[in-house]
């Protein structure tokens, strides 16, 4: 017949009693059944701890967030085209954007190294501000990533995909030609629109 261990009938001193509670295997007074059960319980706790560890060993995935920031493009006019006292050749005035010091100059500023495209209308009207007379101006534009007009390239239809330099700058010179042979004297004005966009 099974009998419960006579656990409560022991008389032990207070310090030993404390040890028996804290360290069940320590005390010589601890009954064998209690030792066994404590051992099983400890093992089961370890098993639970192991399960907890597995539970927290999950799947991990990393996702990259990204964005490419491009600076807004600023276009600064350094100087306008200078027509004053230009020499005429049979009424024709020509300002070469690569060679002439009268060429207008602009600086485009954007993201360093970024590619961009320049578009402009080659033919524009200049209107006499005192009348209805119109001059047809043909623009010529050259550009260079360096601030050097003499090595700039004329921007034709096939070379308008350009690139900002390391400082985010691109230099533009504007010239053109106009025929004044039949133009009445007066003041003429018009606009030149040049568009720049990232590509």
């Amino acid at each position: 017949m099974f009998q419960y261990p006579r656990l409560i009938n022991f008389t032990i001193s207070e310090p030993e009693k404390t040890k028996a509670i804290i360290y069940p295997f320590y005390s010589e007074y601890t009954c064998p059944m209690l030792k066994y059960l404590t051992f099983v319980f400890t093992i089961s706790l370890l098993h639970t701890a192991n399960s907890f560890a597995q539970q927290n060993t999950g799947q991990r995935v990393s996702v990259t967030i990204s964005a490419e920031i491009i600076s807004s493009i600023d276009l600064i006019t350094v100087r306008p085209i200078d027509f004053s006292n230009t020499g005429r050749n049979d009424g024709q005035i020509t300002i070469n954007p690569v060679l002439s010091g009268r060429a207008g100059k602009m600086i485009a500023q954007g993201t360093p190294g970024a590619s961009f495209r320049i578009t402009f209308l080659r033919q524009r009207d200049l209107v006499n501000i005192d009348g209805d007379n119109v001059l047809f101006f043909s623009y010529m534009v050259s550009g260079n990533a360096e601030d050097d007009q003499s090595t700039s390239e004329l921007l034709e239809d096939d070379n308008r995909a350009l690139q900002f330099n390391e400082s985010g700058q691109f230099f533009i010179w504007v010239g053109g030609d106009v025929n004044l042979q039949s133009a009445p004297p007066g003041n003429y004005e018009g606009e030149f629109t040049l568009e720049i966009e990232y590509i």
Partner: protein
Amino acid sequence: MPIRLLVLLIILSVYNPARTLAQGGPPGSGDLEDLPITVLELDGSNLDFGQIIANSGLHIIDINSSKVLGITAVRFLDVLVEITAGDALLLNNDPSCNSDPTCRLPFTLDAAYANEGTNDPSAATPFTINGNTAIASFRIRQGGGNNIPPPAFRNPERFEDTAYVYIFGSITAGNVTGGIYTNTINVTVVHD
């Protein structure tokens, strides 16, 4: 009395019906926690905001354009998903930009999950967001009448289903230097 208490504790620690159903065997023969969880990136791309002009303000990737993850596991398994992200995208991922407003883009994380069997953002449930940490605990398959674990099964893959996690958010483009800005979102999925 202590012995009875110990016996009770042992029984409780060994007998856990939720953990022992996986293999259908006797208690302790298999754990739900041992069943595999697979996390797949479904769209294969990162969370890319694309080209943005500096100083252009708030840019949002909404849930319909989000990064989608698929979590595949036994359908009645509860999972805990934690998503953490830095609070900013940094120019060239340079840590020194964390304290430099000219080379960081503040990022706000958002996330949601859909666990009704279909990849449907419109049916998604938002994560709880705290800062740039998103946490949600959910069952792989909610509804569908199969929420109760079968008493025994030996082919867990027959009972697999997929839940979907949507990661999205927004950045604010201030007056910052041009270039490539990046950071990383970490997603951890564990049994719950």
